[in-house]
């Protein structure tokens, strides 16, 4: 089903560049690349929210976007909601050194960062498109 909605959950980690990239790539998929196929959720709502949020991984096949190899979005989703369908790991794609480098504010993003966002967002789309 090409119109199958897919849940995209970014870790949005605050401590390193990988977290920022996970979030920006997710936004790019939602707004530009697959606007009608992607749904997302604020990850910490698993703890703060009610039952509705916890059904997220049951309602949609979920792809988690992780800033580093700790895979926090996957761990949180599998703890509170259900199995994750696939994982996009920024560190595995760009290398741990890049992913774990100093976090970057939106005001300091460079063209190189934007290129990284494009690479990660394309990786997300490839995994989305493999869900039929």
């Amino acid at each position, binding site marked *: 089903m090409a119109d199958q909605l897919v849940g995209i959950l970014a870790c949005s980690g605050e401590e390193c560049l990988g977290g920022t990239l996970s979030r920006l790539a997710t936004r790019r998929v939602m707004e530009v690349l697959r606007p009608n196929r992607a749904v997302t959720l604020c*990850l910490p709502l698993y703890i*703060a*929210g009610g039952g509705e949020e916890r059904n997220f991984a049951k309602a949609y096949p979920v792809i988690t976007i992780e800033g580093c190899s700790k895979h*926090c979005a996957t761990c*949180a989703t599998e703890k509170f909601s259900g199995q994750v369908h696939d994982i996009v790991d920024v560190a595995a794609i760009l290398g741990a050194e890049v992913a774990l480098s100093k*976090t970057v504010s939106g005001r300091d993003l460079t063209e190189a960062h934007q290129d990284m966002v494009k690479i990660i967002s394309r990786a997300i789309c490839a995994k989305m498109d493999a869900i039929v």
Partner: protein
Amino acid sequence: MSKVKVIPCSGIGKVYGLMAREAALTVTERLDPDATETVCLAQLVTGTDEAIAKVKGLPCITVDGCPSLCAAKSVEAAGGLVKQQYRSMDEMRFHKGKHAGTATTLTEEGWQIVDQFAVKIAQRADELHKEETANG
């Protein structure tokens, strides 16, 4: 002496989550990097021992986007001492008629709001840091 943790929700669906994230990063990266630091909230949500060790029993300021208070609740669940809660949505009361941006990018007005918000958070963080230092 441990640094004061400034932890945003980084909510991804609305501008308020982005404002919370950017305000927290402005405090920890620009205004007061010596006395403050941030922690990946998603790691706290996992509840692993490694994550809990980052906040348990330590002074924290949470910066949420909306009344769901995800950061405050997650930090409390992980054993952090939430000494102050903020919500970026509340800041808009002081900036009526301004457009802060979207969940992806902030407008110039949005950055101004974030910068003022960050100064407020940094002042509180400084007070907490001084209290901690005085209490040893």
